[in-house]
């Protein structure tokens, strides 16, 4: 890697190379938008040129339409928010028909986040999306704190994890990213299972189970009682998990959690992430991911780094 870097440097004052590769998924730059925070594709089109993003990770898609949880579905907490959307989505058929045309033409890498209530549902969604054309990779959500069946259980139980990854792997040729639950004592162990079961990458982290109470009414602030915490509050937890995962296995890791500035993204790259995804920060600053792309280019140039390989995993301990 460093050799390539050196070569590039020798080639003179070229623009740094922001492209990256996540388990076979090529991306023009390593900054994506995270599942559930960028809708199904077109919602932010007026504000964000999708072709300047490294990739779009679509909101979680399931076999059948899902209505999600009751409102209120969002509550703001210090440096973060708790959501209990509950994976509302129109189902894979509707998604392919209504949104894939936009996504196919949007000029960026398209990763579709999928979930199911059973392994069979994961498999069927994966198969349908593999046939759809235009999908560059699948992200298996095995970590949603907001659905009762399945959800996080797949991501915390080693046996179930191996089984779901193995079976989905056998059902599709698309690159397979596994989004793991952060609620485990040893994330490295689970990342290794993903590797063994044939995943191409892991993404870390999903939201942390969390809850807020209205102390006047003494009722939960969310219709669903509890939800998942995201935003800057969870960033240091995510950095630790990404670092552990990259040390435990050879799979590329996508760093997710609380990225709202260039520095946040750089922390992920330095501990070993090959890409990052911006989630909650997009709500406050829709152009956050694009600003990070620009900042990253400057950072690499300013530090004499020819490309991402000169940066990724360079933590000095």
């Amino acid at each position, binding site marked *: 890697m460093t050799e390539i870097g050196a070569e590039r440097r020798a080639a003179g004052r070229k623009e740094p190379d922001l492209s990256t590769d996540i388990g076979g998924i090529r991306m023009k730059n390593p900054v994506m938008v995270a599942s*559930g*925070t*960028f*809708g199904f594709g077109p*919602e*932010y089109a*007026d*504000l964000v040129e999708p072709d300047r993003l490294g990739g779009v990770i679509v*909101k979680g898609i399931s076999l059948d339409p899902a*209505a*999600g949880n009751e*409102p*209120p*579905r*969002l*509550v*703001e907490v*210090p*440096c*973060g*928010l708790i*959501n209990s*959307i509950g994976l*509302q989505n129109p189902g894979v058929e509707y998604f392919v028909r209504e949104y894939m045309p936009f996504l196919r033409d949007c000029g960026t890498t398209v990763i579709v986040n999928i979930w199911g209530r059973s392994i069979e549902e994961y498999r069927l969604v994966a198969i349908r999306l593999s046939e759809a054309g235009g999908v560059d990779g699948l992200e298996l959500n095995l970590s949603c704190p907001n659905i009762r069946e399945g959800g996080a259980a797949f991501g915390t139980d080693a046996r179930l994890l191996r089984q779901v990854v193995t079976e989905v792997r056998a059902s599709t040729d698309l690159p397979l990213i596994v989004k793991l639950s952060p609620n485990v004592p040893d994330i490295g162990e689970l990342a290794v299972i993903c590797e063994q079961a044939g995943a191409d990458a892991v993404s870390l982290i999903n939201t942390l189970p969390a809850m807020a109470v209205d102390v006047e009414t003494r009722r939960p602030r969310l219709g669903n009682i509890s939800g998942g915490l995201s*935003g*800057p509050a969870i960033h240091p937890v995510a950095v630790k998990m990404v670092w552990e995962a990259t040390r435990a296995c050879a799979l590329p890791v996508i760093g997710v959690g609380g990225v709202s500035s260039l520095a946040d993204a750089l922390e992920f790259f330095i501990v070993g992430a090959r890409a990052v995804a911006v989630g*909650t*920060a*997009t*709500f*406050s*600053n*829709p*152009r956050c991911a694009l600003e990070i792309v620009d900042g990253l280019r400057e950072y690499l140039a300013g530090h004499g780094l020819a490309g991402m390989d000169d940066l990724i995993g360079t933590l000095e301990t």
Partner: protein
Amino acid sequence: MIYMETCRVEDNRGVGGEYRILVLRSEQIAGSVLPGQFVHVRIPRRNDLVLRRPFSVFRVRNGCMEIFYKVVGAGTRVLAETRRHAALSVLGPLGRAFPDADPDAEPVLVAGGYGAAALYMVAEACRRRGTVLLGGASAGDILLGTEFESLGWRVEVATEDGSLGLKGRVTDLLDALIARRPGEHFEFFACGPEGMLRAVARRAMQKGVRAWLSFDRRMGCGVGACLACVLDVRDEGGRRRRVRVCREGPVFEAGTVVWEEDPGND
């Protein structure tokens, strides 16, 4: 087209009690906003607040867009302290506007508290002037009465504590109006707390009146991406659908809304 615009604060003045008017210089948003649309404002300086705050556009004047707001929590408190010349990041215009008023109907605007702000541009845009019903807890919550009057609207007021106008609810005014003019073909435009909207909807459905309601929901993105702000409606086929208040709303026709609880008798 949704813009993200950095707007200078031209003015930010208290107008009694917890209510304030924020005047923002804006090219893009002010130039295209329609009655009932809203903007999503980033709270400056407070990094711990990760969400924008949604506000209806009260009116547009002299290349400025005005927001009429009530200080209720952390974000609006910071807004209240924001000085002239500060820069605010604003997303907008967002959501679907109130439709053009039916020229054959007598328009009635029904506002609870700061709901009046969302109806002011409707009052400006309507060719026909009608009645504005303003309700609130107390005299201090009756907003923009003289402004509506200057536009040529008849204004009626109800307060729950009786400190101004009728002692009662804004829907009591509505009931009286309907009773007074039984043959009239009305159209309602309403903005206020959900209980009030429900009461307006009930009357509209009973009398066969078209009513446009503007809803208030917790919002994340404001553009339709996060699915935080959902409301259940029925489509033309009568099928229940979960739509986004920030995108398909905030304005919905009363007849399409699926009420969580039975509208009841209020």
